[in-house]
């Protein structure tokens, strides 16, 4: 067995600077043990205020009914479902980073996976709010669960995509939470063993489940992570596929397209990575984690953004082509008369500009490695992806088969907007608490790659590079008797 770990110089270091294992712990745990900055308090209180406005909006919705929103004929799904799909989409990046990149052995995931997974969980929590409160009589929400009841027993319709959604979203939330938390256990134990205050000892002692770092436990932990990654990979693809079935299995022109599943999944990854960028760029700056979330990480994510953005662009064009080539007059009108043009035409062109045209700038390496530009683009992409869902939902249904029932112009009420802002409040309140009380970077995973991918350790391998094959073998297999 070789004791010298070697990794090619072609790969950028994943951890910058000269660091020991202890430095890694100190750097990441520092923010948990220090008092939060004023900036943290300001951000946190703004989030809580938004959350409270959201709670008030929902109070109005529950008390007076969803007439508080401007939904009606024929726009029965408006901002609510748009926001639902948008949040679920954002919730895809975390699992993609932690699961698919684990299976593909992408080392750079270690720097960002923990925060991205947390983001996933919070985004799915936000997403879940919309279909639940949209039910109107929310106190009957549990009717969607199949349980023996006194109504027949009357079961939900297992053939309905809306019920598939219930299973998909709840499974996705549960599995993401388990994956995230099982990964957190060793890091919480690290904080527990350093804790000085009584409260911290108690909290992290309970939260770390008594983790000790035993070799056998690590072996099981690795097996668990790998299998959960293997399960999450098809799961993450299935979730947005099923969300797209909500539309694709209907017979509404503009929704009834077989391209939806891959198109939705690509869009979800696209918007999810944009949100990860937004959060990571702020997090690394505020918490001084530039050595762990390096420019290399940011560039790698920008590459994913330009790839998925281009896939989404192809899907938009394919949709248009098929709407024309399919020769269905309703399909043709839905796209060319009511989507590209018409009163909502502007939203289509915002979507096109933000999602397809602007990410193409990421073909330039200079821009991929530019932090300011990346931050700006991450916001643009998220705006674009919100409009994508708005375009798909509202512009397909505001003019249906019966012109007499055409809506004049759907615009949201303040409580529809308030509900959306409220989910921002929920999301950021959770994220602020997470960044204060939990390690935002997977400590154990960084230590695992430190000696192969750390900058100072890679530098030491320069001598090895110049050796001949025989010398290299002799040096790296020193003392090997297998």
């Amino acid at each position: 067995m070789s004791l010298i770990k070697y990794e090619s110089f072609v790969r950028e270091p994943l951890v910058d600077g000269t660091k020991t294992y202890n430095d890694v712990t100190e750097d990441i745990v520092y923010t948990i043990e220090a008092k939060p900055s004023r900036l943290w308090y300001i951000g946190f209180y703004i989030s809580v205020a938004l959350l409270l406005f959201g709670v008030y909006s929902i109070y109005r919705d529950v008390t007076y009914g969803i007439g508080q929103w401007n939904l009606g004929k024929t726009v029965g799904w408006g901002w609510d479902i748009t926001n639902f799909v948008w949040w679920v989409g954002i919730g895809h990046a975390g699992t993609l980073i932690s699961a698919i990149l684990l299976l593909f052995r992408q080392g750079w995931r270690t720097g960002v996976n923990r925060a991205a997974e947390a983001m996933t969980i919070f985004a799915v929590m936000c997403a879940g709010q919309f279909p639940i409160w949209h039910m109107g009589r929310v106190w009957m929400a549990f009717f969607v669960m199949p349980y023996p009841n006194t109504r027949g027993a009357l079961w939900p319709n297992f053939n309905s995509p809306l019920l598939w959604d219930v299973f998909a979203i709840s499974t996705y939330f549960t599995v993401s939470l388990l994956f995230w938390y099982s990964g957190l256990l060793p890091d919480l134990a690290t904080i527990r063993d350093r804790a000085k205050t009584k409260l911290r000892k108690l909290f992290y002692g309970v939260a770390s489940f008594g983790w000790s770092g035993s070799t056998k436990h690590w072996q099981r932990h690795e097996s668990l992570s790998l299998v959960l990654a293997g399960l999450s990979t098809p799961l993450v693809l299935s979730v947005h596929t099923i969300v797209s079935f909500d539309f694709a299995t209907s017979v509404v022109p503009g929704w009834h397209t077989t391209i939806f599943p891959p198109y939705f999944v690509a869009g979800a990854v696209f918007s999810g990575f944009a949100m990860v960028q937004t959060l990571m760029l702020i997090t690394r700056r505020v918490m001084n984690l530039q050595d762990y979330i390096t420019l290399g990480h940011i560039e790698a994510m920008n590459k994913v953004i330009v790839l998925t953005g281009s896939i989404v662009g192809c899907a938009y064009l394919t949709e248009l082509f098929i709407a024309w080539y399919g020769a269905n007059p309703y399909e043709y009108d839905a796209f060319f008369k009511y989507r590209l043009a018409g009163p909502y035409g502007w939203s289509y062109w915002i979507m096109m500009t933000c999602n397809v045209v602007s990410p193409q700038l990421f073909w330039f390496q200079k821009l991929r490695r530019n932090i300011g530009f990346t931050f700006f683009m991450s916001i643009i992409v998220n705006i674009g992806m919100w409009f994508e869902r708005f375009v798909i939902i509202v512009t397909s249904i505001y003019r249906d088969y019966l012109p007499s029932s055409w809506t004049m112009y759907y615009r949201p009420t303040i409580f529809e907007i308030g509900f959306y802002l409220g989910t921002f409040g929920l999301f950021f309140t959770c994220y602020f608490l997470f960044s204060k009380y939990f390690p935002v970077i997977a400590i154990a995973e960084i230590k695992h790659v430190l000696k192969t991918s750390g900058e100072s350790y890679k530098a030491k391998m320069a001598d090895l590079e110049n050796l001949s094959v025989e010398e290299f073998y002799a040096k790296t297999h020193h003392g090997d008797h297998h």
Partner: protein
Amino acid sequence: MNIKKFVVGCFDDEAVLFPAVKKVRKAGYKIHDVYTPFPVHGLDAALGLRETRLHTAGFIYGLTGTTTALSFISWVLTKDWVQNYGGKPHFSLPAWIPIIFELTVLFSAVGMVLTFCYLCQIAPFVKKHHFHKRATDDLFVMVIECTSKTNLQETEAFLKAAGAIEVNMQVAETGWWIGRYDMDRKLFESKTETITA
């Protein structure tokens, strides 16, 4: 209660740890466990541990989920509450695939995590003796189990020679407990005797 005597050696480099594990095992000592701050690949094999079968359990849980979903949905839609949805067959398998898949994943994931916690004996409020605080930070802590015949001084010297930077003897409970443990012996205060050599 399962209190035993241990000799604990701490290493600060995995490159020193591996040969040390080999030497210690060759000398006939019984390694209770090695505690590391991150998964050290190959250490389980070096310690002679067998491969975990957790993934097999995951597969079985998954199959349970598949069977549960398939049998339940087909019972509901073909026996218990037969409905005519647009003249389509009652046994409409393609439409059930999404839920069958989701339940497969759900059963497998939840089952595996619970099994993992059970096998490792970890849960909220569970307490265990930790041999070294820095085992979750930057030290690799090798714990050798002693019998009545073990010569402590010799074992400690052996670990030192193998490259341990810190060696001590500890009397510890190997199981877990909840709340305060063993008031008289005050093990919860984790008194350790450090031998300076």
